[in-house]
């Protein structure tokens, strides 16, 4: 197998992502301390909401987008054994996204974009913030195009052959991201940007929120996809076994592509302006999107069981102890699955139409997505980095021991941070507050859980520093990496004949379009059919 020509752009992308990550983790520590009025001199809503907005943008838009692009480029070139489709264009997309981030950083860091990463019109940010976000998204579309073109050209060159699972998943994610980013793109291009430039006077907040919901759910699957791709295609081999089923991976990727976009209204359950019937329809779809995750849980655990038994593990649970816990990929995967289980239970409550009432916009929700995203997803980003850094740099990982400690700390810190948050939510604490000037009875009851979250935040920050230190030192490691080849997992049953539908996307994209028209067509059209009143801009 020839050496990938994507190592440069992959490393550059992932470094941008992890740099954003460390800055955001530091802001997180400040936020948990400020939020509970621990140090009176620190109290400042200006700083706090600026920090929360920056933390959200860096974690949810910058870390994720750059990591997905970097991992995607490397996966495409190595799994297909094919050069980048258009390398100059890939770098163009990268720089476009970097310029977007820098452009948005100005207003964010000066408190002129404290509108949180979900934008929240009619609060208005500086136009450079919206423009920066747009460039980041357009830069990522270049990546989408590359992935689709690489799969297409590979299929032309290899007629009748099955697209490797890693590439099939990466392309599914590229298509998913393109479709789901159209919602926020429409909101920014037709509403927020012209409004912030004074070209239009008002925005319809109901329409803006509906468009954002189009993006808001599937974006989390855009973030999660790399984690699932690593679980299916890197983990089984790293654990010393085989993938239980290649087809189930494909099925999971297809189901995520089809079901994750047209269900965004579970973010709008509590909003007026959309009728209950539409919310009901979206709730049904929301439960269907649990199916690919349940399938993934089974397939990955079954793959680990194969590995454990091949390594001599006996009995119903003996294989768990026989797994190579000292391998960062294996350890991260186990911890990721544990956090996915906790987070999944909470997610069922958020998704259910009526029960969501008790937790909507409380700290419970913050706990939920920090577990699933900050926990499951990001810990797999670490595992991907530890696995790929030696392949991309040619240098052995600086310290595997430090990597293992870092992963454990991340897991422990995340549980200490998020489990109390669930409890705070049930005890009535709103999310997105910078202080607690409420009834004494509330504030007293919240104190123990709030103290715990400071410990959690500090542990997570130490863990974040260990990650970047280890990756940084790997570049200068004198010891060369023994094998530069990315070793993709072999399926237990060799692929005999792959059904056409599981080796292509045309039909599924058509299905998403039909489903989208059904679930978003009228809810968007209604804003043009009824008399609505736009809202003028408000400063924070």
């Amino acid at each position, binding site marked *: 197998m020839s050496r990938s020509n994507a190592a440069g752009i992959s490393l550059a992308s992932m470094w941008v992502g992890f740099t954003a990550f460390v800055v955001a983790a530091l802001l997180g520590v400040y936020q948990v301390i400020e939020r509970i009025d621990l140090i009176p001199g620190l109290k400042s*809503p200006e700083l706090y909401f600026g920090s929360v907005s920056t933390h959200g943008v860096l974690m949810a838009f910058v870390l994720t987008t750059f990591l997905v692009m970097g991992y995607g480029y490397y996966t495409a070139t190595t799994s297909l054994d094919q050069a980048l489709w258009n390398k100059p264009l890939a770098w163009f997309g990268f720089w476009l996204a970097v310029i977007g981030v820098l452009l948005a950083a100005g207003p964010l860091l000066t408190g002129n974009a404290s509108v949180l990463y979900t934008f929240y019109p009619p609060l208005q940010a500086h136009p450079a913030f919206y423009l920066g976000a747009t460039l980041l998204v357009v830069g990522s579309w270049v990546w989408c195009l590359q992935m689709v073109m690489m799969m297409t050209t590979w299929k032309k060159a290899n007629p009748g052959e099955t697209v490797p699972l890693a590439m099939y998943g990466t392309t599914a994610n590229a298509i998913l991201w393109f479709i789901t980013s159209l919602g926020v793109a429409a909101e920014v291009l037709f509403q927020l940007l012209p409004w912030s430039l004074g070209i239009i006077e008002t925005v319809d907040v109901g329409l803006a929120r509906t468009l954002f919901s189009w993006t808001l759910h599937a974006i989390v699957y855009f973030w999660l996809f790399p984690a699932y791709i690593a679980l299916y295609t890197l983990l089984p081999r790293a654990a010393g076994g085989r993938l239980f089923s290649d087809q189930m991976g494909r099925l999971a990727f297809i189901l995520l592509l089809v079901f994750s976009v047209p269900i965004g209204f579970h973010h709008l359950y509590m909003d007026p302006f959309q009728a209950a019937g539409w919310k009901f329809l979206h709730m049904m779809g929301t439960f269907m999107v649990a199916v690919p995750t349940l399938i993934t849980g089974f397939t990955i655990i079954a793959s680990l069981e194969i590995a454990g038994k091949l390594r001599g593990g006996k009995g119903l649970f003996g294989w768990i102890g026989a797994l190579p816990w000292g391998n960062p990929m294996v350890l991260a995967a186990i911890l990721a699955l544990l956090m996915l289980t906790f987070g999944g239970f909470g997610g069922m409550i958020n998704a259910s139409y009526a029960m969501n009432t008790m937790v909507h916009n409380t700290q419970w929700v913050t706990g939920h997505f920090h577990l699933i995203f900050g926990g499951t997803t990001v810990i797999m980003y670490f595992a991907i980095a530890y696995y790929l850094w030696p392949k991309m740099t040619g240098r052995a990982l600086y310290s595997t021991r430090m990597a293992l400690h870092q992963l454990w700390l991340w897991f422990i810190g995340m549980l200490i941070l998020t489990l109390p948050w669930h409890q705070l939510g049930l005890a009535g604490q709103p999310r997105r507050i910078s202080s607690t000037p409420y009834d004494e009875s509330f504030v007293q009851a919240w104190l123990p859980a709030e103290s715990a979250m400071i410990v959690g935040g500090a542990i997570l920050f130490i863990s974040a520093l260990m990650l970047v230190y280890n990756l940084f030192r790997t570049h200068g490691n004198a010891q060369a990496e023994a094998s530069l080849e990315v070793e993709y997992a072999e399926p237990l049953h060799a692929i005999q004949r792959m059904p056409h539908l599981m080796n292509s996307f045309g039909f599924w994209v058509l299905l998403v379009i039909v489903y989208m028209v059904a679930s978003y067509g009228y809810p968007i059209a209604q804003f043009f059919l009824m008399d609505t009143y736009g809202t003028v801009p408000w400063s924070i």
Partner: protein
Amino acid sequence: MFGDPLKSICEDPLERKWIWISLFLAFFMAGMLGFYALAGNIHPPSNVETIDSSRLHLSEEFAEDKLGVTTNADGSLTVTLVAARYGFYPPVIEVPADTPVTFRIASADVLHGVHVPFTNMTTMIVPGYISEVRTSFPRTGEFSLLCNEYCGLGHDSMWSRLVVVPKSAGGASS
């Protein structure tokens, strides 16, 4: 006998069994929630009604002297509220326990939310639209109406009072 329709995409019988279990779980949960929503008519607040948020003071319903608690002919209550940075108006609401209450709320400026912890009274308040929540309060006491959506730098301080009095006391005076 019918063959397993999943057989064409999955060879392993164990895996197929698991897919059926996954599908059952998803349909079961969605079915339960769907059944209770439809049978009990339990839906989240989903009123579709527009209003010009910049002219609330000129509107029939949300002008300053119209706000507060009114008793309807059937004994139920309507609570008309305006959410504006940084408070709910009127700032104190008193209602009797175990009485159907319909909240009608409009924003005078930006996005807000309202949540009364330990009750099921909650909704988003979106400028340009009227939010409506129907509920009743079984427990008496002093509750807090918290703004639960970021609305600007003073957001933390945006909360007001809901007092639920015993039904015999009459209530409905605010």
